[in-house]
């Protein structure tokens, strides 16, 4: 990994960069250089050659810089030691920040809404982490359970008028049932096959939600979903509402702060349950299953039950998050539950470093909060998101937090490198 210094090396790098520029020209000339526009009576082409020139230049300079600065191989980033030591204070720091966030001076309505969004993904990430990170079952259809939770709450509250606090556990149970329903047929599958079947399951749920118009409202979705209250106090300006009861001036921000603490509580519940389960026989069985299924069988672990509970508990938390989503938006439609959502949640889990609770939270903050910075560039947002996924994987394949704390240890618990953890099957 020494920088290329010799004259030959520079020549070689220039030639290599020239090739990269040539490839970039081949890639971008047709798709960027010629834009198709819908005009009267068909399509017309419009040349944009200056953009192509910039991209080609960028490829040349980028490749050259990479070769001259880093040698021929891409660097694998490792954290410097002081930063890694500071890492152990990261979790209390983030927790404190999350708890105090609504009371910080510069926090407005917008930041709170963003905080709710990030926490929703943190919770989904932690939920999926049970399935992928602990049990090692690759699930690309996780959003299906999120959808089940959201529609369960929407339908139960709209049809039977049940309150949020009654529906929340029901939605979790229904989502867990969906998890078992998916779990049964896929018990024998592993790895990529499992991924693709769960993806298909997610798509089936979405297609059914879109087309079963009598029940789900079809593509228009369900609207007018009731808002949750706090012990019977609703967040409205009427008499008997939250503000009136406590003698405060009515402010719509009260509801947002309440929703913020609600999702924070739900997320922390997910985290707490996961951490507790990891120490119990069930959690140990999950991790053993991730490392070696055959050895598990040989040791008498009931693989069927272990896998099904992983699916069910992971799905249950997605169901909780789903009903929170429905009550926050007051509106659900199939559009919120596309494959891309599953991909984002999985990306959060893997980029965070599978199995690491802190890593998942940091990855959610980076990916969701980070792309929110680009919200003005609507079309570019997902482009940057995709590119970030590729780049982070290439630079840090083991995720942001590359070490694990073992669930059980003899004596002192020492962090182990992510490379020693199996990724499951």
């Amino acid at each position: 990994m020494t920088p290329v210094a010799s004259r030959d090396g520079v020549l070689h790098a220039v030639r290599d960069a020239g090739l990269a520029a040539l490839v970039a020209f081949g890639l971008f000339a047709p798709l960027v250089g010629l834009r198709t526009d819908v005009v009267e009576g068909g399509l017309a082409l419009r040349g944009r050659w200056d953009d192509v020139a910039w991209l080609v230049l960028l490829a040349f300079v980028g490749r050259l810089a990479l070769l001259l600065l880093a040698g021929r191989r891409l660097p694998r980033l490792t954290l410097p030691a002081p930063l890694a030591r500071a890492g152990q204070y990261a979790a209390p720091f983030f927790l404190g920040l999350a708890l105090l966030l609504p009371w910080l001076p510069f926090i407005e309505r917008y930041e709170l809404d963003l905080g709710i969004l990030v926490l929703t993904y943190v919770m989904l990430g932690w939920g999926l982490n049970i399935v992928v990170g602990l049990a090692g079952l690759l699930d690309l259809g996780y959003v299906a359970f999120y959808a089940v939770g959201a529609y369960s709450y929407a339908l139960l509250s709209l049809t039977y008028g049940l309150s949020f606090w009654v529906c929340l556990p029901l939605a979790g149970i229904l989502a867990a049932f969906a998890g078992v329903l998916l779990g049964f047929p896929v018990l024998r599958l592993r790895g990529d096959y499992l991924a693709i079947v769960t993806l298909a399951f997610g798509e089936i749920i979405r297609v059914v939600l879109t087309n079963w118009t009598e029940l789900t409202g079809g593509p228009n979705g369900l609207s007018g979903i009731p808002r949750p209250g706090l012990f019977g106090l609703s967040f409205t300006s009427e008499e008997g509402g939250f503000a009136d009861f406590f003698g405060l001036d009515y402010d719509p921000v009260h509801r947002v702060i309440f929703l913020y603490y609600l999702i924070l509580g739900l997320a922390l519940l997910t985290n707490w349950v996961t951490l507790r389960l990891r120490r119990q026989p069930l959690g140990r069985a999950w991790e053993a299953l991730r490392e070696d299924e055959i050895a598990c069988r040989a040791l008498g672990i009931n693989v069927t039950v272990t896998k099904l509970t992983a699916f069910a508990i992971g799905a249950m938390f997605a169901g909780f998050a789903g009903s929170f989503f429905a009550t926050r938006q007051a509106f659900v439609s199939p559009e919120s539950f596309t494959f891309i959502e599953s991909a984002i949640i999985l990306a959060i889990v893997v980029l965070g470093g599978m199995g690491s609770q802190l890593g998942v939270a940091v990855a959610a903050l980076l990916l969701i909060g980070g792309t929110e910075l680009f919200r003005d560039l609507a079309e570019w947002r997902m482009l940057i998101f995709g590119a970030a996924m590729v780049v982070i994987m290439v630079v840090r394949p083991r995720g942001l937090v590359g070490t694990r704390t073992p669930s059980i240890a003899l004596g002192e618990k020492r962090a182990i490198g992510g490379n020693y953890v199996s990724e499951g099957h």
Partner: protein
Amino acid sequence: MAYALQQLINGVSLGMIYGLIAVGYTMVYGIIGMINFAHGDVFMVGAFVSLITALLLGLGGGAAGPGALLLVLLAGMSVTALYGWTVERVAYRPLRGSFRLAPLISAIGMSILLQNYVQVAQGARVKPIGALVPGGVTLMETDGFNVQFSYVQMLIIVVTLAVLAGFTLLVTRTSMGRAMRACEQDRKMAALLGIDTDRIISLTFVIGAALAAVAGCMYLLRYGVIDFYIGFLAGVKAFTAAVLGGIGSLPGAVLGGLLIGLIETFWSAYFSAQYKDVAAFSILILTLVLMPSGLLGRQEVEKV
């Protein structure tokens, strides 16, 4: 009867498109054991390059000559092949030897990247183009229902068969094909015997992308409308086809594609068009559960 015959024709021509994409999935899976999630989007890129070439040649108003169509096909194949090569080089090669999930996540990122890149570069609106190969022959006329075999469908079937024949020759008769099969059987051993495995893997991606471009071009000719999102569903269905045929098996991919095309067409014709995707996906799940090695695949042996 006539109705069923019409569906058969439609199903076969659709299945050919799925088959071409499925070959790309199955080849990559055979050699490096990963699902190239971005392959559906490579197919979409192929369709877009074909569209742009067709417009560049001034087609789009009416019927196109065979020479112009061949040019469109070749341009689509070569540019898309370059995309396939770049995707492998940028997103997958640095991760070779890394843990199993890494390339899959990278591939999902690549798929999102390609989709949104085309959306940014070409706009989100659907791109309609007039029928480049209009007309057809009427095979059967029964009271009120004509069985149409359009020239486009004939073209799809002929081109697909020709391309697949050429591809089969490449894999079975050339030294490059032998190297590819060697890599598929045992990559480490192939490397020990002096095969440049990185080059073979690159070639696999190039060939797979070129075949996907043929599919994209045929899709454009058949439907006349494309947008940046066509790759996702087509990709998942083609993967279903590859799994149904037995992943790793090239004839299996084509067979699976045909079956998926037929099932989808007949399902929409006789049951409901809205749930045709559910039918395709249910078949995927049933195949994997009941017959995990597919129709023509090898039985996988579990080793400790």
